[in-house]
């Protein structure tokens, strides 16, 4: 830890800390992290930092909230931020990825099979996957009740960057790659691909 911290640097430290902090950053917390400065110096630096952002009147500013300090976007830009958040592609839930993995490897597959493997109701997830065009109905199974058969779509291949269904790693390969040879690994895989795509 440096012995003396000049004002310029202290402002920089505090700016970085507020930005990286998960919660509003309190003066006590700053004192704990930079112990060689006085509470007065900390308050002075905080006030300077706020002034810098207030005077530049840019997109973000420092606000005192819930006993601490936090960066926020200026309210006049909120409509743009809403636009951005709305347009963000929706991420698949873990349940959806699990179900998708089962359908990918077991297709054509009926819902009851998916639910037998997952151990939970999967109707909602199947519907989401249908809506997002990652799976499609292939037909009906010729058994009593004529349940629907599901399979993956072209969009599925595109989403996960696969050339064809044959490029899916086999369950055995996944087993060799990962310690526990069950659906958990496929989830990891799909999450990996998914995250990368967005």
């Amino acid at each position, binding site marked *: 830890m440096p012995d003396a911290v000049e004002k310029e640097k202290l402002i920089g430290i505090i700016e*970085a800390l507020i*930005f*990286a902090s998960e919660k*509003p950053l309190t003066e006590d917390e700053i004192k704990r992290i930079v112990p060689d400065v006085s509470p007065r110096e900390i308050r002075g630096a905080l006030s300077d930092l706020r002034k810098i952002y207030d005077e530049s009147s840019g997109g973000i500013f420092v606000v005192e909230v819930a006993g601490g300090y936090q960066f*926020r976007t200026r309210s006049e830009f909120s409509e743009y*931020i809403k636009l951005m*958040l709305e347009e963000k592609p929706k991420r698949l839930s873990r349940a959806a990825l699990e179900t998708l993995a089962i359908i990918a490897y077991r297709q054509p597959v009926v819902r009851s099979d998916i639910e037998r493997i997952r151990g939970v*109701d999967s*109707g909602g997830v199947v519907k989401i996957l249908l809506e997002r065009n990652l799976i499609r109905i292939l037909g009906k199974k010729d058994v009593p009740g004529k349940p629907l058969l599901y399979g993956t779509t072209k969009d599925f291949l595109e989403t996960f960057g696969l050339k064809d269904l044959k490029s899916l790693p086999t369950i055995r390969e996944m087993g060799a790659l990962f310690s526990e040879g069950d659906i958990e690994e496929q989830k990891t895989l799909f999450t990996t691909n998914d995250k990368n795509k967005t």
Partner: protein
Amino acid sequence: MDEFLTDESTYRVRLPIFEGPLDLLLYLVKKNEYDIFDIPIAEITRQYMDHIEIMKVLNLDIAGEYLVMAATLAHIKSRMLLPPDRAEDQEQEELDPRMELALKLAEYERFKDAARQLDEFDILLRDVFLRGGRMVLETEDEKLTDLTLFELVAALQKVLLAAPKETIHQISIGELTIQERMVELSQMILERGEMVFEDLFLEEPSRMAIVLTFLALLELIKDRVVRIYQAQPFGTIRLFRAVTEDA
């Protein structure tokens, strides 16, 4: 040592300093200031074997690759001792028996350097950090995710906490059964198409009625009459009319 070393030690204890036989060889080449493409093979073999001996003395598990390399070195050494085959020599120049190893070392060195360069970058979460807090913006995020039973129960607890502790008049199960409540609820949701979880309990001051409504809701979800979604953890829970697959 770092986390990966311990991770990997589960299947093999490895020398802490060297990443493998190529790493050890490269270290010896650099230490002696040899040219990778003109290594005095007898000398380097001797030094390599010395290191293997030290590893044995230290009681370290020597990975198979180290022993394979020892055999390779011995093989190259013996080939270097052979007199050049005159007949073959006339047709084409014989390859230096050290060439293959030299190329391997040169290539390994390239990537070792590349790794070193990567390590000097400002690495995220080591040298540089991203915004830590969640975005604070008063906006209803409509990104819907599936809901677990746990989250639903958490929501119920919230409703129960808000309900008065002492109820003026209790509704007994006899007066309003789960079955009846299910019919009411499904009609409500079917009519509106979408509802907010808390709205179910607006007219239910009694704790018993809240629990009854909740149980009825669970039944409806199980029967796939109703679907529930949540935009974000601890966010608003929404109920939708479930659409049958065949529709």
